[in-house]
């Protein structure tokens, strides 16, 4: 299978005081289209750092990270913004919705940035809200939503532009079991229908139950990379 993300000899060091802290060490990985994969490991093992580099929010110290043919280390600010805007979707532990805008407007924002024509935009927003089952909440404000609904809006906002890759950092950490399964179902469904690649950073067993590949990190190193037969599937 052709890979859309290649990571070769990636090392990431952060300056700490007078010295340096190595957060990622000699990582070599590749990901194909349509994967549903998670980085797992204890807190501080480097999951978020790795996700941020793949998402071009941060740059490698050494090594080469190529996303959809773009070398992350060599992108200008403008090019990396464009890559994120067109091809990458992010979901975070806290939903980070814009509090002053309605659900509809939150989802619409990404498309406004792309200057999509109004009619097309409207259809895309309504489609995205339907994927996450929040059509009837279109005009609510984030403060009026439950935690599960908030995270579903965040998924719709990230998915509305139909990115090739979704990066989800601890997406269930703030949700109860029922809501966690709800959003995981939603994401698994989108992965199946739209062939979007999903990469998770998590230490949540519920998430792991859906993953088809689990990469274990410890102290910034990959210690295990195994294909899984997911215990749970979309619709089940």
């Amino acid at each position: 299978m052709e890979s859309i993300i290649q990571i070769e000899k990636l090392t990431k060091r952060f300056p700490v005081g007078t010295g340096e802290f190595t957060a990622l060490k000699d990582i070599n990985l590749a990901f194909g289209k349509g994967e549903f994969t998670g980085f797992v490991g204890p807190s501080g093992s480097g999951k978020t750092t790795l996700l941020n580099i793949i998402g071009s929010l941060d740059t490698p110290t050494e090594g080469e990270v190529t996303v959809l043919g773009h070398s992350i280390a060599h992108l200008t600010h403008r090019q990396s913004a464009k890559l994120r805007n067109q091809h990458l979707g992010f979901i975070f532990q806290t939903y980070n919705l814009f509090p002053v805008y309605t659900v509809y407007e939150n989802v619409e924002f990404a498309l406004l940035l792309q200057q999509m024509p109004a009619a097309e935009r409207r259809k895309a927003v309504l489609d995205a809200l339907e994927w996450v089952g929040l059509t009837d909440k279109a005009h609510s404000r984030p403060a009026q939503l439950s935690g599960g609904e908030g995270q579903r809006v965040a998924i719709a906002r990230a998915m509305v532009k139909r990115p090739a890759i979704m990066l989800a950092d601890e997406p269930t950490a703030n949700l109860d079991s029922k809501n966690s399964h709800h959003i995981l179902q939603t994401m698994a469904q989108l992965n199946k229908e739209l062939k979007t690649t999903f990469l998770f950073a998590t230490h949540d067993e519920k998430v792991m139950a859906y993953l088809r590949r689990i990469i274990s990190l410890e102290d910034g190193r990959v210690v295990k990379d195994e294909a899984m037969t997911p215990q749970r599937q979309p619709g089940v």
Partner: protein
Amino acid sequence: MIRFLFKGIIRDKNRSLLPVLVISIGVFLTVLGSCWFKGIFSDMIDVNANFSTGHVKIMSRAYADNAGQMPNDLALSEAGQLVEELQTAYPGLEWVQRIHFGGLLDVPDEAGETRGQGMATGWGIDFFSPGTQEPQRMNIPGSIVKGALPARPGEALISHEFAERFGIGIGDTVTLFGSTMYGGMAFANFTVAGAVRFGMRALDRGAIIIDITDAQAALDMADAAGEILGFFRDGRYDGARALQLKTDFNARYESETDEFAPLMLRLNDQNGLEDYLALSESISGIMIFIFVLAMSIVLWNTGLLGGLRRYNEFGIRLAMGEEKKHIYRTLIIESVLIGAIGSVVGTALGLAAALPLQEYGLSFGSAVQGGGIMMPEVFRTRVGPEAFYIGFIPGLVSMVLGNALSGIGIYRRRTAVLFKELSV
């Protein structure tokens, strides 16, 4: 996108309320202040023009050199002829003769003995020619406290304060003592037709106003006038036009050798008004500068606080692929929108305060006493066309400047650093 930002501003009171408040207040003060200063300056200029300097004034060179002493021995002779020439040569102005004189007013009792005496400043103005504007120009009808305008030669107006002090009633006789054009002693009796109060210290202490022909007769100034004043027919002083006129007139009439030859001066050239005119031109600019400076600093800080509050939002927007430059630009657009709202509110409030003050004015009583310059006691605002837009300059500039400064931090930092800081 702008519609989107506008919604954000309207809904997020934290983002808009404080800046709108700050801008509204600043703009309100700017609008009111500039109307206020404009009112004061233009009233002052009008008063000076109407009572003293004209828009232009012609005197003999010798008279001009000693104008403070009202030297009627140096008055223009054949003044009637000169006015006719002026009316032909410069029909855009109205030309009037005046005699300004000093003297002693004596108030006799029934027996003819002196009951009281006081120094008086006198004016001889044109009360009786058909279509004369002079009484209106000096706002005499509006200033009459009792009695009426002189209706025939031999009648006079005196200042109300003077009349009160000496118990002078309408129909009483006063005697004016002065000096003739030739240095002799002059005296003449006048019947008091009315008492006036102008609201200006210099005039209200002691003044007598008589018809110019009476003044000419009393002071032995046949066909002579101390001053010929010219007023633009639209009533507005125009410094550039006045300068043209002055250059032209003086080229025709002025004489090196004859100190009695007529000389024209502009309003600017008299009573030290040049400086005031210059100040009146620059005062709005000065005020705008001060308000821009003060409000920018305040808004810079509110912008910094507002920016901190929105770090999370900016972080998400970066992650969504918005460029830093674009985020910065939307901040500026937001500040333009907020600045515009504040400017509209502030301008409306400023006009709401300035318009009644234009109508009714505020009385400062005798607190203000001008030196050579005549100062009205009632200060009024003047709402010109610029009152409607002048507030937008500090309103918009300070908001945009304040936000541009506070946004620089976000703009300068590297994405990775920023994203970490933005604590998503």
